């Protein structure tokens, strides 16, 4: 019985488990592709309500289309454990053999792939924490001159003005008269200080730990009859996963640079002869 933890540890870190999980992931994602088609309405609220409330409502309500997603979570969980165990085994082995390295720099470069593996786990943890712990205030609609206050805080957003450019080209008739690059100017305040900022699609604003994202806007076309009054629809979210993403990406980049350096300069010059 005393050997059981060691056996489990070895099994969890095995490359065969990696291969099996990756193959299962391919099959599962293929099923996800078919399940997602035409069923966006089931999955879109996941961004707003969080993982567990979503699982208890949308997820369980339509298991035929969501089973692949629960399987995906389980497979990613196993893959994360497998990656952690595998990388940790290699790191321990590397530390044990550190006496073989004469130059500390060369020894450090050997950690490059393991740093990248740990980075992937950090990024996955970030996604999980986003879906578990985010505060989301979806679909807040603002007209020019109106304001909203984030519930439970003194954070206030006032919609000052809306700037946009029309497509002026001639080549894409489909885009004729369409609004391109919509930009809303907001006044952000917390009761003590205030500042103005511009948000647009794909360019959110960060303020007091909250991200403000433009989801929708109007008008979308140059004025003709039936044109909508101007408004922007924003989603406000406090997402603890963001710091994990950035940390993970920074770690991955570091590992990649170290790996590339080792590959280009150390191995290429045949200097690594331990």
């Amino acid at each position, binding site marked *: 019985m005393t050997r059981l933890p060691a056996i489990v540890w070895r*099994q969890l870190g*095995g490359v065969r488990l990696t291969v099996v999980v990756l193959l299962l992931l391919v099959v599962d994602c293929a099923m996800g592709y078919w399940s997602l088609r*035409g069923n966006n*309405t089931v999955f879109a609220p996941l961004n707003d309500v969080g993982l567990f409330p979503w699982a*208890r*409502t949308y*997820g369980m309500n339509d298991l035929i289309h969501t089973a692949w997603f629960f399987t995906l979570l389980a497979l990613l969980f196993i893959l994360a454990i497998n990656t952690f165990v595998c990388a940790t085994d290699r790191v321990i082995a590397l530390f044990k053999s550190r006496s073989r390295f004469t130059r500390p720099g060369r020894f450090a470069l050997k950690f490059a792939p393991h740093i990248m593996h740990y980075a992937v786990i950090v990024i996955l943890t970030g996604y999980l924490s986003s879906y578990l712990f985010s505060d989301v205030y979806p679909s807040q609609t603002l007209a020019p001159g*109106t304001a909203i206050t984030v519930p439970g805080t003194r954070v206030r957003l006032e919609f000052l003005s809306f700037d946009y450019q029309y497509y002026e080209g001639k080549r894409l008739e489909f885009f004729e008269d369409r609004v391109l690059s919509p930009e809303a100017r907001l006044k952000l305040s917390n009761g003590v200080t205030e500042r103005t900022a511009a948000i647009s699609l794909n360019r959110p604003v960060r303020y007091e730990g909250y991200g403000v994202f433009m989801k929708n806007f109007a008008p979308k076309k140059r004025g003709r009859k039936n044109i909508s009054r101007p408004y922007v*629809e924003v989603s406000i979210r406090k997402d603890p996963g963001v710091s994990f993403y950035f940390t993970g990406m920074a770690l991955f980049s570091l590992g990649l640079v170290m790996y590339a350096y080792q590959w280009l300069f150390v191995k290429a010059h045949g200097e690594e002869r331990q």
Partner: protein
Amino acid sequence: MSKHPHIGRLLFVAAVLGAVFAINVITLNGCDRTQAEKEQSFLQIGDFTIKRINPDLVEARDGAGRILALIPRNTEPPQGYTPDQIVRVPVRSVVAYGNFDVSALRVLGVLEDVLVGVTTPAEQWYLDDVKRGMASGKIVYLGDSRAVDFERLKRQNPELVLTWDHSAIPMLNQLKIPCVITSTPVAMCLNARMRYVQFLAPFFQREPEAEAFFLKVSDSVRVIRDRTANAGAKPKVMWGDIYEKRVLVEPGNAWVGELVGLAQSDYLFEDVYGTSCIEISVERFLHSGDDADILFTYRTADSGATSKAAIARLNPLLAKVKPLIDGKVYAPLPHYVQSGHRLDEILTEIAAILHPECYPNFELRFFEELPDVDPAQKKEQS
């Protein structure tokens, strides 16, 4: 397996972990509740949802993804909701922008009691209940939906506004009138179209009426499926129109596309996905026009759809599509858009148009088949 014992063990580990996870998820759903309670606790209708938190609180998610808390009258608002999210039920007075919302109120049997404002003028209404209400002054025309007179709206003192116009939300928030966005970013599928009244029902505490309507329409769909199951050749159908600068069609995910497929026919915009009345390129429209047998246009006779020749005159590009050359073109009658409460009849009529051989001597009530030329023009020619 004996050659690869590790793979067998690993698959076993994966299976065990998967089973544990599945058990966890099922446990999260709450095994202590009965099946009936579980079914009632959450209902998804396209983008809309109804979630029963407890007997005194229902959460509704509207077409814009906004959460509304439905609570009985004379009760304290629950924690965690802003004032504009609170709707006291049963709602006693409503302003409705859309025809389909007015039809839904009729299905629920509350139209005459609660409707106090609309955005269609009196002379354009075909529903007797609305005409009576407007004649008596109970229901008021609030101006065009893009230029609503909010002062008049406020005077009508509605407890709820049903609107597709997102830009009205800030103004209604200022007036402290809760609103429901009844349009969705993606076109309603057939199931959502049939169940939409079940989304509105909790606002008026009329769930039995909504359920009865859904069952009635479900029955009509089942009859359509059975009746057209052995129909002959599959007609190819397109639903849309070319306007001055835009080409608008019903996408394949819309209830129209789904119904056409269900009635043993081919919908030629099956690959188009998105909102109702979605804009596509003229080339894509004409490409389908080469194959189509039947065209359903959005235009009514009032907007120029009096004959195939008249439509071709409105836009010469349309003259190239096969239904105008040797197929059939159908236009909605003016009261069609206000007939959502007769959805079962509309679905049956569309099936009868697609497969007249399955519905002999069927009398059209919501659509008309366009002649080749206008009657007056035909007289002149003769």
